[in-house]
């Protein structure tokens, strides 16, 4: 049997029966990667022998180990002790962190087997996984196209059955958009639901780690494992974690769904638009009440995001200066020259562009006009959702205005690339949870994604909506 094609919950059932072993699953994964990944480039750091060793070293099963025996891939910006963690960047060449991210410790405690690291846009700066130092990741549905980004490696690996499931990170859509473009499930939790300790920071007020999976049930299982308060991250919130997997199957009869008119703008692909219409009809037949509504400040989200996120990034990336870890340029006349040369040679173009834009937005004379103004408009975007959620349980939109685009199609013009995130960014600015699930294909066979946004800390309802839709669409 090709175990790599199964979901985590299907494999757990087989493991429970004793029909298969964790080593069997790993062997299937290793074989698939061996056959496919040269063409896809989804996985950047992977040692098959170590993976098998880990599978063999697993202790016997106990009931609390929700992921026992299941291999998992981790986005390359999440620290794994003594394993390469390079953020898709030359500046972190050879970096092996001395500690695990909290999510990684939680995965290990739950019995998961760490496999390796997946490709990403450098420092998660991108929507296409084209800016990685390790090269472009291809979309498994059409290798001339991008997989989305920045967690494109995780999404492509899951879609290509090179992984059972994976972790990604989402700052402006970096889990949901690649999940949409690769035809898999991706969930961005509420800001504060999952510890960011050990996630190499891009924009600290927006970043969240989340699951990328083959189906909604797996997303619920993985989310439960990685969620919860962590003393190492003061922004992780001390709230009890619901038993997501047992709560998603109760249906959506009477659920109130808002459909924001600002998300059905000109420029949205006609097939995406049609598949949204079909999805909304399906949700209605399941008993949900769908209503058109408005999130009036949506059009400002991209502008706010590219000031706030780059400002935070310019500050976070100051630590990469060639002193404590990673790459250092040689032959510099002074320490400051060494910093400048290290960052010139170590960062790719998009990273430099964002550092400069963010530094500009924070610099004396421009701070009020750009950064501070953006934070004030962020307040309006957050309020839009607060108002909407007084009336609606969830909000449904397309995840991306278009299906996967061609490699190099948007690399020449950063602004066009930035607009790829137009439907996912608002959730990060407002801190709310969102999930992308598959909702059909274009005529040319490219996946389309449906986004469901929810109230803060109400991942349960977006998962339940997603599960109901997924089962009905089967």
């Amino acid at each position, binding site marked *: 049997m090709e175990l790599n094609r199964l979901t985590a919950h299907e494999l757990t059932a087989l493991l429970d029966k004793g029909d298969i072993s964790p080593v069997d699953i790993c062997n299937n994964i290793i074989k698939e990667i061996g056959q496919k990944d040269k063409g896809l480039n989804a996985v950047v750091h992977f040692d098959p022998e170590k993976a098998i060793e880990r599978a063999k070293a697993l202790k016997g099963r106990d009931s609390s180990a929700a992921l026992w025996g299941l291999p998992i891939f981790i986005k390359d910006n999440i620290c794994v002790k003594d394993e390469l963690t390079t953020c898709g960047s030359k500046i972190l060449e050879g970096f092996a962190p001395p500690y695990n991210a909290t999510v990684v410790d939680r995965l290990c405690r739950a019995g998961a087997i760490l496999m390796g690291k997946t490709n990403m846009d450098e420092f998660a700066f991108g929507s296409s996984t084209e800016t990685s130092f390790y090269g472009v990741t291809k979309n498994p549905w059409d290798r001339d196209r991008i997989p989305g980004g920045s967690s494109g490696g995780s999404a492509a690996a899951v879609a290509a059955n090179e992984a059972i499931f994976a972790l990604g990170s989402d700052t402006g859509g970096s889990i949901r958009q690649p999940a949409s473009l690769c035809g898999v499930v991706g969930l961005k939790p509420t800001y504060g639901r999952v510890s960011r300790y050990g996630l190499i920071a891009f924009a600290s007020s927006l970043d969240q780690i989340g699951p990328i999976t083959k189906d909604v049930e797996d997303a619920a299982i993985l989310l439960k494992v990685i969620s919860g308060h962590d003393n190492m991250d003061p922004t992780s919130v001390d709230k009890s974690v619901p038993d997501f997997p047992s709560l998603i199957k109760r249906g959506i009869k009477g659920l109130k769904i808002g459909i924001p008119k600002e998300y059905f703008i000109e420029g949205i692909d006609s097939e995406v638009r049609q598949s949204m219409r079909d999805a909304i009809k399906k949700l209605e037949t399941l008993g949900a009440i769908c209503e058109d509504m408005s999130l009036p400040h949506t059009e400002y989200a991209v502008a706010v995001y590219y000031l706030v996120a780059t400002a935070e990034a310019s500050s976070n990336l100051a630590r990469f200066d060639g*002193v404590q*870890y990673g790459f250092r340029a040689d032959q510099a006349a002074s320490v400051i020259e060494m*910093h400048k040369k290290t*960052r010139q040679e170590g960062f790719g173009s998009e990273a430099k562009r964002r550092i400069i834009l963010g530094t500009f937005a924070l610099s004396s004379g421009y701070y009020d006009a750009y950064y501070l103004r953006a934070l004030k408009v962020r307040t309006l975007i957050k309020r839009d959702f607060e108002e909407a959620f007084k009336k609606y349980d969830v909000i449904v939109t397309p995840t991306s205005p278009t299906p996967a685009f061609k490699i190099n199609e948007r690399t020449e013009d950063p*602004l066009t690339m930035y607009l790829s995130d137009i439907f996912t960014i608002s959730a990060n600015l407002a801190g709310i949870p969102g999930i992308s699930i598959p909702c059909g294909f274009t005529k040319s066979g490219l996946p389309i994604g449906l986004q469901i946004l929810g109230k803060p800390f109400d991942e349960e309802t977006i998962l339940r909506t997603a599960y109901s839709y997924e089962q009905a669409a089967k």
Partner: protein
Amino acid sequence: MDITKDTVRYVADLARVGLTDEDLGNFTGQLDRILGYVNKLKAVDVSGLEPTSHVLEMKNIYREDEVKDSLPVSEVMKNAPAKKGDMFKVGKIIEA
């Protein structure tokens, strides 16, 4: 517009990012276009609005002041591009 080559050069210097002449030319045009786009925020009335720098209503977070183990120095130094004993090594900082 606010962005000229001089601005980009100045800001890149603040950010300690060296640029080639080609980078400088490209970035100036690109940043100018991006700022042209974000200038749409100028149309929003923001009077009386509080800025949202963070979505959680965070208060100070306190914990007991206990001494705990930190990472072993040897582990931390392992990734250093240059070191001397337990210290990170860089070029001379103080001018002679």
